[in-house]
Each structure stands twice: as structure tokens, then as C-alpha cells.
């Protein structure tokens, strides 16, 4: 079983990202379980969502405390909250950021780090506003390329089925982000 945590801010689509990723993984025959951090959400406040995936049934019904992978939808969260809390040693972090992975030396020393400027991509595809682009679909494309856990095609198919607003733009953003994700030292990508 593998566990994932998504960090975002209220309104960026972290919860939807977790659901879309679950749907995409389910298409590939995985057992999945996705849920938000239970509580009250407010626009702009830090939020988290979780995902479990497994080849067999998933029995655990408690919170995820030691994730294998992280997705961070907003670069400002890296400073604002302890995003790596509980992250397993050698775990992966995908950050939505203008910086290269080398721009996060402290993280890169302990974890596998990749970045993608999903904000710019989302904005160019007309997703969200200039001050608050909605990056969730774009970053899932990047996650597919970076993690290899799920194919880009499954991500796009999940978007096509479950995102009714600006579906084509969301798919295009995911595809562009898959090609734009940058890993440290040219680590192999799966796209």
C-alpha cells in the first residue's frame, strides 16, 4: 500500500485532485481511498487531502500520518507549514513552483524533489484567475510523469469523466505539465 498527501490552499482544488487521482488509479485496477483532512475549509487557508492506493483491498480507515509521496500545490506552503512532517525517508515531493528542484536544497538532501510551474500553465489555459490559478489538473499530469504510479492517459481520462467545467483546457494543462516537470539531476521521468 502506498500513501500520499496533497497540500494546497482552500480553493486550489487539493480535494478534487485527490479524487481525480483516485479515479485515475482505479482505472488502472488499483484499490483506492481518497479523503480530505476532516474539518472546515476556508478559502486560502492551508488544506490537505490524502490518498491510499494498493493492489489489494484497503482496510485502514484512519488518517495518513506517514505518506510515501507529497504533492504541494502552492510553493508558499513549503515555508508556511511543515509539509514534510511524517514523510518517509526517500519519499517524493512534487512542488508547484517556478524554481528548479535545485532551488529546494534542504528538501533535496533528504527526499526526491521535482517541480513544475503549474501556476503558469494553468493560467495560460485559462484555469482560475491570475492571482489564484487552479493548478490541480495540471499538477496531476506532472505527478504522472514524475511518479510513474499512474499513466498520463488515465489522468486525462479521469479529468474527461469527472471535470465538467473547461474539460479540454484541464486536459491540455495536464499534458503540458507532464512535459514540463523538472526533476533533480535529470532523474528519469516516466512521461
Amino acid at each position, binding site marked *: 500500500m502506498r500513501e500520499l498527501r496533497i497540500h494546497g490552499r482552500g480553493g486550489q482544488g487539493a480535494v478534487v485532485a485527490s479524487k481525480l487521482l483516485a479515479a485515475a488509479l*482505479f482505472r488502472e485496477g488499483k484499490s483506492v481511498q481518497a*479523503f480530505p483532512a476532516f474539518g472546515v475549509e476556508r478559502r486560502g487557508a492551508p488544506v490537505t487531502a490524502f490518498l491510499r492506493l494498493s493492489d489489494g483491498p484497503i*482496510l485502514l480507515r484512519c*488518517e495518513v500520518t506517514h505518506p510515501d509521496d507529497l504533492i504541494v500545490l502552492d510553493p508558499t506552503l513549503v515555508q508556511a507549514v511543515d509539509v514534510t512532517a511524517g514523510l518517509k525517508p526517500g519519499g517524493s515531493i512534487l512542488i508547484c513552483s517556478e524554481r528548479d528542484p535545485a532551488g529546494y536544497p534542504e528538501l533535496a538532501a533528504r527526499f526526491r524533489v521535482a517541480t513544475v510551474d503549474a501556476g503558469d500553465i494553468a493560467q495560460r489555459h485559462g484555469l482560475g484567475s491570475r492571482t489564484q490559478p487552479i493548478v490541480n489538473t495540471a499538477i496531476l499530469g506532472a505527478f504522472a510523469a514524475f511518479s510513474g504510479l499512474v499513466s498520463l492517459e488515465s489522468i486525462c481520462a479521469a479529468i474527461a469523466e469527472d471535470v465538467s467545467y473547461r474539460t479540454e483546457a484541464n486536459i491540455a494543462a495536464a499534458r503540458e505539465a507532464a512535459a514540463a516537470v523538472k526533476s533533480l539531476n535529470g532523474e528519469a521521468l516516466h512521461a
Partner: protein
Amino acid sequence: MKKVIVGNHAVSWGVQLARAEVISAYPITPQTQIVEELSEMCADGRLPARFIKVESEHSAMAACIGASVAGVRTFTATSSQGLLLMHEMLHYAAGGRLPVVMADINRAVAPGWNIWTDQNDSLSQRDTGWIQLYCENNQEVLDTTVQSFKLAEAVDLPVMLVLDAFYLSHTSEPVDIPDQADVDTFLPKREARLKLDVNDPRAFGALSPPDMYMELRLRQQEAMEQALEVFDAVEAEWGERFGRRYGAIEPYRTEDAEIVLVTSGTVTSTARYVVDERRARGEKVGLVKIKMFRPFPTARLRRALAGIPRVAVLDRNLSPGRSGIFAEELRAALYDLEPARRPGLDGYVIGLGGRDVTPDTIGECLDRSRAALAAGRAPEREDLWVGVKP
């Protein structure tokens, strides 16, 4: 068709498949998604039901009662404070022998204000005369929703299906959604045995003096007793058609077990994980899941637990001044066993107000019961709190 959906929407899909005819509800976290989805289904024609907006949960249940007396299939959903506000009407639905189906999202009761899960809201409605069914995963939620209508209408009693806040209500997982045609065969349109009829007007809920009230209650009790067998039949038919059965209670790896956990709701899932782990290490542990709380499957639980040395009941609830409520019910149920076959019973209070119940929490319960068993000790207290700050 398989879809990844949240537990709340599994309820909505179930209600749509059951072709409920009148839905009346008032929104409350964490139930809102259920009625949000249902109102959209009604609005866009997927579900040709009458959606009655009301100003409170009390009115929601009252509307369902009125519609149900008129002979149609009715549904509502609520949670916590909303369920408590309904309390008076819950008696009315049950006493009126009306097959209303309701989903309750288990949410702790205020104060302190809390939107997270525990079972005190539904369990405090224990004596209203509703059948109560607790679910473990989203698939079970959808299946139980449809089954509830069949059960309710067969015995003329209301059914409350219960699911944990967030751990089910807001958690997405794959659910197999049956075909409408198959469900239609399983659950035809409601045929009320007794309903409002303008050509034969009668007073429903009429004055019932001392010389008949008791008999009415006796009939209600007999219907409750019937409900267990009817539930089995409903599940058997569902299982034949759709290949899934859950059982009023479900023993899991209890063969030769020395300690058996008794669970309900989503804690069951995590407990299965712990049981599997311990079994892999050679520990003789198992669990019994209680799905049906009312009517209480007393005889079955006796059979399942007779001769087990130690039973550890995990209660995500509390009857203040006494103990966990499932533990309390079990103590009473097991009392009639001959002393040699009567298990020792540890009642653990865990996970109140949404506190996470992890494998470690359950492991600690098991370890404490094992130690007590090894020492031949009776429980220190009837309420053993696990996972609390010192």
C-alpha cells in the same frame, strides 16, 4: 458500473436506484452532500421524486411521515443535532409503523461543538423504534440503502442506516453501482398495506387508550423481532442478484480465538487490518462486526461469542455514567450464558468526537485484554478509555 464516489453520494445513488418518491431533508454537515446530490437528481429528472424543502429536521421527518402515510416511498438524511431535533418525530414514524428510510451520518453531539464522527447521535435514538444498520464502507452504504427500503416496507418499520462522518461520508472509493433494471426487480414500487384513502377516511394516530396501547406496542415489538429474519431474506436475495452480503453480524477469523474484538462502523475495517497482522504473528484474535443494532441480534451474538475467553468491545460512543453502549448491550446479551461459556468482557471507549482510531489504538485494546486474560483478571472498570491524554 463502478465509480469512485464518496459515501454520501453512495447514499444518494442508493436512493435514486430505490426510486424514492418523496424526499424531504434539511442540510447539516457532514450530511449535506447527500441531499445536495438528491436535489440535483430531482431537478434534472434522474429521480422523478418530490423534493420537499423544509425549515428544520423536525419538519423533514414530519413531511416524510405524511407522505409515507399516503403510501409512497420516502427518504431523509441528517446528522447529529439534526437527528436530535427530529427525536419526537422518530417515535411518530416508528409508532405509526411507517417505512421511512433515513441516513444518519454519525457525528458527535455538541457541546463542545464538533463535526467529526462518533455514534452518540444515533445510539441516543435507540429506543425510538427504528431499525439501525451501521455500515463499514461505501459499497455497503449503497447496498444497505436500497435494502433498507425493502426491509422497512416488509415489516412496516422505519430504518436508519448509519455511516461515519468523513471516514465514509467524505471518503472516495470505488463503488459498484447496480443497474436500475436489476434493482427494480429487487425492489418494486411500494404497496402500502394501510394508507390514507379519501374513499375510506380514517384517523391515523388516533387516541389509543390504556386498553389498547399496550397491544399496539406488542405488535411493534413483534415486527421488530421479525425484522432480523426479514433482513436475512433481503440480504439473501440481494446476494443472489449482486453477489454481496454483509450479515446482521459478521464474525471474522473468530475460529479458536482467545480474544475477539466487537466493532461497528469504520473501526471494523481498521480492526480487520489489526486482526490480520496479529494472526500473521500467531496471535489468536478475531472480531465480530455488529451491523444491526436494532433489533439487537442477541441470540446470534450469544452464539458467536459463547466460549470465547475474552471479548473486547470497541465503543465509539459513551453513555455517561455507565459505559460504552455496545458493551452495555453485550453484557446484557451474554448474561444468560452459562458461566463457563460466558466471556470476560472489556468495554473500551475510543475515538470520540472524531479522534483517530489507528491500528495502534486497537492494538492497545487487544494488549490490555490479553494481559487481563493472562492474569485471569476481571475488567478494572466497565469503561476503559484508550487513546486519551493522561
